[in-house]
């Protein structure tokens, strides 16, 4: 029917491609558009969702990727964020190169459904947090449990 046809709009252009930050990232000329797309999603997450401050994008010459720099709050230290599509692979050397920038590093894995997972990466041996108390001696209770289940 003509009415239905009339209401069909022309397909709208992709808002991401038109976003100034995306275009900024493209101009960095790192090559892989997938990584740029991942970087853009992380950018949006940091700025709009988590409200981090001073989020900017940088080109990494060694790795040929877009890196992000941001602070969690005013006055907190600058973090380097490496956004990567989840199916891509990387080597320990590249991680070391990002760590060599001297800032605390976050690796962000971007899935095909745009799910984001952040990993903290630190140079050296970081002792894990100890388990939280209070601690109960399981002892007899465990034994009693087992007998009950029989």
């Amino acid at each position, binding site marked *: 029917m003509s009415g239905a046809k009339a209401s069909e709009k022309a397909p709208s252009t992709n808002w991401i491609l038109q976003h100034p930050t995306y275009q900024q990232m493209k101009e960095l000329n790192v090559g892989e558009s997938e990584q740029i797309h991942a970087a853009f999603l992380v950018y949006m997450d940091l700025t709009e969702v988590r409200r981090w401050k001073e989020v900017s994008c940088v080109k990494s010459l060694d790795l040929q990727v877009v890196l992000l720099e941001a602070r969690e709050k005013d006055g907190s230290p600058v973090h380097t964020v490496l956004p990567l599509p989840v199916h891509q*692979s990387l080597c320990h050397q590249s991680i070391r190169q990002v760590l060599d920038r001297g800032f605390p590093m976050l690796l962000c894995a971007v899935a095909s459904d745009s799910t984001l997972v952040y990993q903290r990466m630190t*140079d050296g*041996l970081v002792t894990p947090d100890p388990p939280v108390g209070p601690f109960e001696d399981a002892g007899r209770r465990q034994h009693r449990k087992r007998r009950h289940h029989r």
Partner: protein
Amino acid sequence: MEAPPCSQVEELQQEQEHGSSLVVGLSLCDSAPLLWRFQDLKTVRSNSLVGALLGSLPRTPRQNIRLGRPLLLMPEEERVLREHHGAAALSAWNQDAAGAAELRQRYEEEQQRSLEEQSILALEDRKLALLRAMTSSSGSESGAGSDEALQCRLLALEQNFSFPRSALAVQLSTARAGLSHCQEACAFLEADRPIREQDSPRRDARYQVFRDLWGRGFFLTSAGKFGGDFLVYPGDPLRFHAHFIAVCLTLDESICMLDVLSVARLGSNVKKTVLLCSPAPDGSVHYTSLQWSGMM
């Protein structure tokens, strides 16, 4: 009779970092390095090498929680022992037929002696029991008549008593070390191909990392359960939980992001930090700690 594939290798150890001078006797079963002697196990443990116990305990065989000797060393542990001051290999200890026969004869003699001892003791027990039974049943009676009857019965018992071999209580010797007397067991353990992985960059990386962490005083065990190469303990594993899961790779080895995510997630679930470890060209080792960010 063929000589078993096991051989004795004595190694001289002078652990400068750990401050004690010691000798460890390594038994190679095909390519698996085993320690049998109790003193050797104590020695390696005091030098922060853990290994893995393989044997079953004679008194509690049907469980896996507490195992006994021998101690199997990881390839890295064996290599560290060898490199840490020269291995002097003694000539292989061949057990010939005469040796085995002698052991067997000694065993038979011991069994016979034990049988004789036990039958004497059993007879004594029976006599006492008989005595008790007779004096209690004929409590009030006393006199030469009952005494004579008692003597008769005791004599009859002694003449007719026999201690069957099936009633013999056998002592299991747990002090004996090695499989020298079990030819069939040795043959069973002999593998068709070497048990260890072939030389590879990954294997070398593992060793460099092991040596570095061990040199810093950590205790390391294998981390198969956690999908890593080593579990790193700040002290003896019996006293501490592991702090780290060490994943060893070369600097230019490619790893999939999904693998990084899965090992990091596992690490956070078990409260351990995942360590990416790579030996650097200058001989040091680069460590990167992987932690769950906690950013929801």
